[in-house]
């Protein structure tokens, strides 16, 4: 169903920033901190998206995903690993018998500058290789010139190509620039069938920010009120510290509530975040500040 864009709500940037700043003042201590850190760990899409990625690198990444920190075997695993399509089969094999999903970027990631058929083939290939989740990019050029129906149709087509795989739509908010654009793109993506909406590829600066995430969470909430369908959220890029992750969780908790506080509805696209979360968890367990030499870099 194509959304009524006339109904798109204007966004006041300063108001959003003030809200974020107030949410950041939540003090997360003691049990709630431990609980939050573990929750965040379980929500990570542990990611490698580099031109130099190789089977060896991906296999090691997958080991880390399955067993983030051997001394604490009861810790949750991350939610998924996220790789390029040609690495999906490697990851799938490495994650066999685990509950870690394989996510693949597709649709001429990160620019999306290819014709639809290429994007569809890219998607189908990744799904055929065993991807559980597809992270697509929208065509920002078309969006910015106002060709919203193009965006809608393209997402709908990719969604169809995904079959049972679960579709995350990357808005690349750093290129959309305004929060009103972010809200509009979120509405289009959800109406076109996105299972998740995601901020960024990680290749453009700024990547995920809290104001952008808050606006997307509010869009999800309004869409849920309107249609009854829950859509997930994935901030990606630039989230490196445990403290930031907790701040994001506060955003989710106070915007969408407890239903969204699970890896089914919220993910972090990140790579170095995993280790900082682990260091903080171990610090909470031992009472001693940690050094990264005790944590594997994969």
């Amino acid at each position, binding site marked *: 169903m194509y959304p009524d864009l006339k109904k798109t709500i204007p966004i*006041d940037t*300063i108001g959003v920033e003030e809200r974020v700043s107030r949410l950041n003042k939540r003090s997360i201590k003691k049990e709630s901190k431990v609980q939050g850190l573990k929750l965040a760990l379980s929500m990570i899409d542990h990611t490698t998206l580099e031109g130099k990625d190789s089977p060896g690198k991906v296999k090691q990444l997958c080991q880390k995903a399955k067993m983030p920190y051997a001394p604490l075997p009861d810790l949750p695993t991350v939610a998924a690993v996220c790789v390029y399509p040609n690495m999906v089969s490697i990851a799938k094999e490495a994650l066999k018998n685990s509950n870690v999903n394989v996510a693949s970027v597709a649709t001429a990631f990160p620019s999306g500058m290819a014709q639809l058929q290429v994007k569809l083939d890219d998607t189908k290939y990744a799904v055929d290789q065993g991807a559980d989740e597809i992270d697509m990019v929208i065509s920002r050029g078309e969006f910015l010139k106002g060709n919203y129906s193009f965006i809608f149709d393209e997402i709908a087509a990719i969604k169809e190509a995904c079959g049972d795989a679960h579709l995350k739509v990357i808005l690349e908010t750093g290129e959309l620039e305004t929060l009103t654009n972010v809200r509009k793109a979120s509405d289009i993506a959800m109406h076109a069938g996105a299972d998740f909406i995601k901020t960024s590829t990680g290749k453009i600066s700024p990547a995920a920010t809290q104001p952008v995430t808050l606006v997307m969470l509010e869009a999800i909430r309004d869409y849920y009120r309107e249609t009854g369908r829950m859509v997930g959220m994935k901030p990606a890029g630039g989230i490196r510290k445990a403290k930031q992750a907790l701040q994001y969780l506060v955003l989710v908790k106070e915007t969408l509530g407890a239903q969204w506080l699970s890896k089914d509805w919220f993910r972090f696209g990140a790579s170095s975040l995993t280790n900082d979360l682990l260091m903080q968890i171990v610090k909470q367990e031992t009472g001693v500040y940690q050094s990264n030499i005790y944590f594997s870099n994969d």
Partner: protein
Amino acid sequence: MSDRIDVLKTYKTYVAGKFPRSESGHTYAVKNKKDKTVANACRCTRKDVRDAVVAARSAFSEWSSRSAYNRGQILYRIAEMLEGRKDQFVEELELLDIKKKDAVKEVELSVDRLVYYAGWTDKISQVFGTVNPVASQHFNFSMPDATGVVGITSPQESPLLGLISTIAPVIAGGNVCVVLSSEKYPLPAVSFGEVLHASDVPGGVVNILTGYQKEMIDHLSSHMDVNGILNTNSEKNIRKQIDENSSLSVKRTYHLTENNWIETEHENPYYILNFQEIKTTWHPIGV
């Protein structure tokens, strides 16, 4: 000597742009310094005050939302009209035994004072408004805005210049007023009403009542729809009464009681500011 009998003028009040007689139906004798009755003036009371306040209130929204430029034009127009009737006013002052030389000076200064305030209308917010550099991402500015209905007790002496010196800063700032004219010398006030009437001043912006101030001050200063009082009466108990009444509705009340209205001190933008509210507006700065 002509056999012709002069047609004498009936002095009425000026309310809501019209010239009604007092609701009371009474008049009082206006006398010159030799105690000779020169005319009768309306002896206004409570109900006239009430009607005048209603007239003023209904004129406020339109007058205060006129452009500053337009208000300036109208004040200047009053000056033009007064200049044109200079002789009439000089004669009227002479009727009250004011010396011709002084009468001419009073009328000329009155015209000049109107011109002075006419020029302020579109500068007051430039000079006394501010843009405030708040520490957050907001644009913030403060502007003077008219207080509302102002009651004026005009001075006993200087019946024209004192009157104009109190009215002009009040209306220049977008306020409307109810004026109790000089008790002793009400005639120039009534004639000034005629000037206002001929000067594009919307009805109700200035309302002029004659009579005994003591019979009206209590009602005017206690009226809950009056927002400010400009008092020139120096009597201590009257002053106190005005102050006490003002507290009923938190009126802005100023006393200008020891004055030589000829002084240039009375060309004073701070008199405009006395009946201005500073309104501060905030707005975020973002895309």
